[in-house]
């Protein structure tokens, strides 16, 4: 099925925004101005964007500690995200969550998550809400190959199947759980794991937006049409370390360089868009320029934004005491 | 037993009471006491009330300790002459305990005295229907935010001579919570429907506070059903009302706040304990209870004033009417009594607040009994 021009432009912009956001964080983090720690999504943009291009605002996603890409793909405000990462009062979480807890429920974004394997059970609940409230929504759990070994994830695959939920489990397999290779830590295959629960399985190349988009469309349609949960296995490469400051001594010297050269989802998108005359490349250049401006203003605004105050410390622990 | 020895026992305030707590002794052993003097404070789940000595003499022995919760009829202490020896008193206590252990029973009547819920038109009303006798029946109508237990110290006394019915108004107590537009007219109609359902063509009506206004509305709308009116600090006669106190009575959700709100009802603040406040809160917290009261409040006490004027009904009344009002009433000012027409028999009670029937029980009951008796004779 042909992807609309509008969807292609929007998706390219989202991928470019993620790339620019993360590259800028990489630089800014090195200056010491960003508190805490951040986990960058560079190289994996097509996964978040290819999946979310098939979702509506009322569909729900749950993300991971590497969550900036999912947030941007689901429509969370970039300026608010940047301010949050800088710990400012104007952040989407008012400076109380930080990089690992960015959430915007009004956008169906159930949160990045500091706990590996935290998302899949939550997504069973979000899918249950869609089912009970009969709003035709689906719920999508993004989780890594590392989280695929968590009991919570395996329990969720079972529960979603038992309850026949409109849920999609997207395994973002970048080959590493922190510094430990998936080839060491994951027994069997993701495909066999899905089969073990009687769950349909799909896989795709995560550096190819079009491949992710089409596989995700099939997976999401399946779940939305009431046929139960699906697993989508996305093969990815991580361009930076587990967290910023990780020297990646566990990776071969050329691994990342090769990935950047051969598996850049933005480059492959431009190539195919040009070859198949899907879009005018100058339109994409314009997007690149606009995104650069947007990120620059987001950083400047974040740096100038006010810090949270003492009254914020006790606010919002409870709805009501 | 020796005629000069008298047992002080846990009193029974209303038939529903099975036990009470001896809150405190007012007198110490050795103090002289006259019949009718208060010797102790007794606390039930509903109210704290003074316990009056049934005899004169000397408080010789406190058998029960302050703080103890005891069944009705349990021995609290002994009043006797100075001449009675300590041995005689100890023997009396021993024999008293033995006697009560043998008695038991005697509660057969109590079962029928429990309130029951009956369907009256669109309402389910919680009704306590006690007493039989030659006299015409009496209907007791409690006030805003109250319930039938407001008459706990009166109903059984009056029921010695006639049938006496107390009920929870719609929106109150254990009755259903639909109050329509919350007007006195709707509430009076419910009271009238109740009389019909109980097969009572005519009744003496006692109304307290808002219940007084309902009683007047009954007379206005169903004159044939009303034999006499006993109005206790009734609403509907003046404009003024303590609106803040009414609001607190509805909205308070903490024991200490409700206790404070209830204390506005009485002159002697010590009558209202935490347990009484807790009991009112149990009723308030039922789904729909506060909404019902807010509806009534809006209909009857809008903008901080009484919005119902039943003075013309009282002025025109051609049946016996008596009026009770505490001079220290903090909810509805006693001016309402002072301005009442001459044909009304008025009892203004000094040092008493908004609830004379609870605060001045003995006198109130005596005066009401006399009023009803006279009305029966005249009829």
């Amino acid at each position: 099925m042909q992807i609309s021009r509008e969807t292609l432009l929007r998706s390219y912009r989202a991928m470019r925004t993620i790339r620019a956001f993360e590259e800028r964080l990489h630089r800014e983090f090195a200056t010491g101005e960003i508190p805490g720690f951040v986990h960058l999504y560079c190289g994996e943009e097509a996964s978040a964007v290819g999946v979310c291009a098939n979702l509506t605002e009322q569909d729900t996603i749950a993300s991971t500690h590497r969550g900036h890409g999912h947030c941007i793909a689901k429509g969370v405000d970039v300026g608010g995200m940047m301010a949050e990462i800088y710990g400012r009062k104007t952040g989407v979480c008012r400076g109380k969550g930080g990089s690992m807890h960015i959430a915007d429920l009004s956008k169906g974004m159930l949160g990045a998550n500091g706990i590996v394997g935290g998302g899949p059970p939550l997504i069973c609940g979000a899918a249950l809400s869609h089912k009970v409230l009969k709003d035709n929504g689906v719920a999508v759990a993004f989780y890594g190959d590392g989280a695929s070994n968590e009991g919570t994830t395996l329990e969720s695959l079972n529960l979603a199947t038992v309850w026949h939920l409109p849920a999609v489990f997207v395994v973002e397999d970048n080959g590493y759980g922190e510094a430990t290779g998936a080839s060491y830590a994951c027994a069997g295959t993701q495909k066999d794991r899905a089969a073990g629960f009687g769950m349909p399985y799909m896989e795709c190349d995560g550096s190819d937006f079009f491949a992710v988009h089409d596989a995700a469309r099939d997976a999401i349609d399946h779940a939305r049409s009431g046929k139960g949960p699906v697993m989508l296995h996305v093969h990815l490469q991580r361009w930076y370390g587990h967290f910023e400051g990780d020297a990646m001594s566990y990776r071969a010297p050329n691994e990342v360089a090769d990935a950047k050269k051969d598996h850049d989802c933005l480059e492959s998108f431009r190539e195919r868009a040009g070859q198949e005359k899907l879009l005018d490349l100058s339109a994409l250049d314009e997007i690149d320029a606009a995104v650069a401006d947007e990120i620059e203003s987001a950083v400047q605004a974040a740096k100038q934004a006010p810090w949270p105050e003492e009254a914020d410390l006790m606010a919002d622990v409870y709805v009501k005491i | 037993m020796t005629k000069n020895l008298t047992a002080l026992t846990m009193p029974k305030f209303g038939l529903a009471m099975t036990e009470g707590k001896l809150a405190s002794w007012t007198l110490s052993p050795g103090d002289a006491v006259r019949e009718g003097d208060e010797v102790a404070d007794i606390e039930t789940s509903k109210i704290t009330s003074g316990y009056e000595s049934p005899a004169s003499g000397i408080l010789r022995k406190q058998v029960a300790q302050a703080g103890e919760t005891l069944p009705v009829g349990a021995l609290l202490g002994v009043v006797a002459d100075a001449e009675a020896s300590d041995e005689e008193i100890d023997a009396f206590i021993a024999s008293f305990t033995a006697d009560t252990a043998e008695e038991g029973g005697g509660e057969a009547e109590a079962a029928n005295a429990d309130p029951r819920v009956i369907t009256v038109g669109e309402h389910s009303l919680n009704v306590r229907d006690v007493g039989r006798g030659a006299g015409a029946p009496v209907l007791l109508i409690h006030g805003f935010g109250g319930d039938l237990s407001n008459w706990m110290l009166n109903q059984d006394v009056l029921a010695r001579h006639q049938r006496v019915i107390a009920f929870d108004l719609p929106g109150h107590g254990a009755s259903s919570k639909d109050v329509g537009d919350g007007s006195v007219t709707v509430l009076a109609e419910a009271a009238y429907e109740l009389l019909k359902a109980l097969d009572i063509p005519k009744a003496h009506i006692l109304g307290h506070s808002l219940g007084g206004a309902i009683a007047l509305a009954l007379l206005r709308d169903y004159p044939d059903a009303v034999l006499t009116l006993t109005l206790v600090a009734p609403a509907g006669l003046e404009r003024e009302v303590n609106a803040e106190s009414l609001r607190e009575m509805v909205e308070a959700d903490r024991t200490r706040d409700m206790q404070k709100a209830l204390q506005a009802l009485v002159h002697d603040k010590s009558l209202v304990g935490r347990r009484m406040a807790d009991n009112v809160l149990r009723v308030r917290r039922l789904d729909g209870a506060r909404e019902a009261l807010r509806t009534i409040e809006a209909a009857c006490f809008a903008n901080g004033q009484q919005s119902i004027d039943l003075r013309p009904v009282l002025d025109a009344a051609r049946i016996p009417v008596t009026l009770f009002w505490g001079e220290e009433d903090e909810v509805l000012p006693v001016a309402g009594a002072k301005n009442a027409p001459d044909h009304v028999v008025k009892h203004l009670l000094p040092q008493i607040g908004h609830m004379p029937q609870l605060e001045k029980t003995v006198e109130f009951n005596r005066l009401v009994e006399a009023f009803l008796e006279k009305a029966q004779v005249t009829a």
Partner: protein
Amino acid sequence: MSKKSFRQAINEALRQEMRRDPTVVLMGEDVAGGQGGSSGVKDAWGGVLGVTKGLLTEFGESRVLDTPISEASYIGAAAGAAATGLRPVAELMFVDFVGCCLDQIMNQAAKFRYMFGGKARTPLVIRAMYGAGFNAAAQHSQALYPLFTHIPGLKVVVPSSPYEAKGLLIEAIRDDDPVIFLENKVMYDDIEEVPDEAYTIPFGEANLTREGDDVTIVAIGRMVGMANEAADRLAKQGISCTVLDPRTTFPLDEQTILECVEDTGRLVIVDESSPRCNMACDISALVAEQAFGALKAPIRRVVPPHTPVPFSTPLENLYMPNADKIEAAVKAVMMQKTREVA
């Protein structure tokens, strides 16, 4: 109004709230009990103690969800459902099983609102049985309310009677924050007058079940009944006690505790949970900080020893607080040389 058991009170609260609000759903192991069984009877059990019996029949499978024995997934699902529009009541069966799903409670549900800058509501109730006295041994007998009370973002309810249980559970379901609702397994057959109508009891408002002048006894959950028994015995001996049931360990009604201690000058705390860092410690600290001057004697705690809950009856009896131990503690406090209080 009629007499109802603790079990019936909870069933009625769930039923009335499910009728009132279509977003209330139940989930848990055997909340119906019978899905997939060979008898074909789906509403077979109503939980191991029959508390949720009949609810599947009335509300159907979309709202009464039997779960696999898979606490992490369904407690997490309850948190996710609460954040996205439902009001789930999840049953954890024995609170000891929180070991299998603490992350979903502690790191997820409890923290959403704060982490997300006040933009989340998580109206979740987790019901679970707690307490010793049933020979259920170390993994099925703990009183873990201090564990939950420790976690900001949670409210913790420990009802002491059927009346309390119904009103507090309805309040919990209507509350917009995650609530842990702990039911003492020994109390399910306790009976008292419970209104037929729905009603609520606010959180953070202590209940005084006895009022006295000499000693304040703070007791939690099942301990309230034992404290009442001790207070009634002590009253006959001339010692009058206030018995205070906090109802919720968070929010805690600090004001009423302090007022009662100011009135009586003596404090005994009865807590069924393990003695280190339990509510008795917490309340002792509160009083030491804010009412030290009112104390006529040292605070006494009636708590179990720092051991797992033992199985064998004589050992379990030794382990548990009871009315005798409370009575002895109160007398000991009364015997303490009275300090001069300015």
